[in-house]
């Protein structure tokens, strides 16, 4: 098992380097000279040269990339074009907020998705099933930013229960968490239901029932564990969506996370900042995929056996 984990971790290095290369090159496609943008139109050629030298922009592009990627693996994301602060520092300062938001969204979706999915499968074709699947369908079709605006409108402007932006109060995370978690909840509830329906028809469930187990016990001990594998696949995909959704959710709620930092970086044409945020997202995405793959082994003994 550990051998597999280490192998996968090593395999992350070229992926992260490759992604960084793509994003780095895209950023350098941008028209206009960042030095002129940072120093203003009337900067002297000497000042511009000096500024470019300071940010390493006078080297050939491949050397620039090599310097950058070596820095990234050493934990140095460069310095901001805008105010010369360390990007590592800035990103690390914002990261806990994004993590907190993601955890809140994750709790919303996991706490609701499983009960909804399992109950609708067990009570297939009843009104509970119909209602839950209707809600789930609305959930996957709702744009994150619209849901966010509606929640702000209702729970913060009308009822005044939660703050509409920022992360200063203890309950600030509630609305962004629900906003970000709803799509994931809906997708997972749908998969849990269909996966449960498939499992419930299997022979081993009939066997479990025929040996006299109670309905609850059959569901808990025999059905749920087997239904988990497809759910896990969707879970992995949805975790990726969570990262993407966080960019939009953070913008709607002025949440001080990496997503908002990136959008602010774009507005200020602070490319190293955008690049730093992207590298951080790519790292998270890669680690999440690894964790999901490991979770398969945890849930399914057949997969676990392959890793030995």
């Amino acid at each position, binding site marked *: 098992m550990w051998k597999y984990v280490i192998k996968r971790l090593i395999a992350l290095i070229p*992926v*992260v380097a490759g992604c960084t290369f793509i*994003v780095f090159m895209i950023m350098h496609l941008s028209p206009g000279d960042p030095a002129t943008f940072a120093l203003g139109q009337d900067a002297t050629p000497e000042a511009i040269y000096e500024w470019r030298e300071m940010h390493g922009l006078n080297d050939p592009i491949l050397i620039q990339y090599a310097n950058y990627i070596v820095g990234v693996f050493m934990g140095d994301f460069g310095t901001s074009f805008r105010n010369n602060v360390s990007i590592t520092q800035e990103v690390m300062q914002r990261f806990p907020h994004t993590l907190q938001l993601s955890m809140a969204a994750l709790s919303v979706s996991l706490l609701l998705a499983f009960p909804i999915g399992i109950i609708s499968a067990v009570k297939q074709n009843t009104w509970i099933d119909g209602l839950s699947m209707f809600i789930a369908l609305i959930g996957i079709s709702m744009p994150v*930013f619209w849901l966010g605006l509606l929640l702000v409108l209702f729970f913060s402007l009308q009822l005044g229960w939660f703050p509409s932006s920022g992360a200063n109060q203890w309950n600030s995370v509630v609305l962004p968490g629900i906003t970000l978690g709803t799509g994931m909840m809906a997708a997972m509830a749908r998969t849990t239901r269909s996966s449960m329906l498939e499992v419930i028809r299997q022979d081993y469930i009939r066997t479990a029932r025929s040996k006299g187990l109670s309905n609850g016990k059959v569901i808990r001990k025999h059905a749920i564990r087997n239904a988990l594998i497809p759910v896990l696949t969707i879970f992995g995909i949805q975790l990726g969506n969570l990262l993407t959704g966080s960019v939009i959710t953070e913008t709607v709620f002025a949440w001080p996370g990496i997503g908002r930092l990136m959008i602010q970086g774009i507005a200020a044409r602070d490319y190293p900042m955008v690049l730093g945020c992207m590298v951080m997202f790519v790292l998270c995405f890669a680690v999440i995929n690894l964790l999901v793959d490991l979770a398969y082994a945890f849930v399914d003994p057949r997969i676990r056996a392959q890793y030995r």
Partner: protein
Amino acid sequence: MSEKTAAAPAAPSQFKKTNQWFDVWRRLKQSKTAVIGLVIFVLLCLMALTAPIFFNYEQDVIRINVQNRLQPPSAEHWMGTDDVGRDVLARVVWGSRASLSIAFSIVAFSLFVGGTIGSTAGYFGGVYDNVVMRIMDIFQAIPGILLAITIVAALGPNTVNLVIALVVSSCPVFARVVRGPVLTIREVEYVEAAKAIGAKSGTIITSHVLPNCLAPIIVQATLSVAGMILSVAALSFLGLGIQPPAPEWGAMLSGARTFIRDHSYLAFFPGLAIMITILSLNLLGDGLRDALDPRLKT
């Protein structure tokens, strides 16, 4: 898409093919939700096509009319007016043109580029397949919309760059979806037979291999249109997509944020339009998946 594919296969299989698509339609009709999705989607397309009949672009959609600003919904303005006095209904209706046409073109381009990459990789295999698919892997390791955001940020926000960004970020998905079935189909006897009579690789791929792996491609394309409408709206919401004054649902929502406290209707209708569109495509996509391949039924 269905007429094209029904006509594409070689003559001997013509009769069976028509039957197959007839079967798909019959199965699709049986699903109530899929029919609802299809009807809503057709209505939306009609709305987009007929928009110029009901609203004049210059007069109703983009002309600033400050005297009329921020009026709540009324008989004259069914969805109210926005902060510069433009009729929200007119903008929502015209917004469907932007969203649908852009989403369709993105899916068409990605299908073409990704499909070409995926089908050639799957058909030829070997080193080419390996190299191309590893590159696709790397692209897929970047969450799609973040890659799109980066590209638009670098190239500058406008409609063309938006399309480029979303095509680049969704190509790998199509490459993967197409490559899978091509790998299986290239081994079957009729492909071998086509090779034996000296057909060119391009002909084999387009007329023998691809028509037989359409099911997953059509499902992916339908669901992708929904995904693209959402992505276009999201990027425009962030100010990185279609630029004002052109009407676009996401951009309209973004503009409504400032006035949300007293003029909540501004934030309601464009979002509703997005949701109904996505909902109809999801219903249709689910129905198509079940109808095209009963084995995939969930």
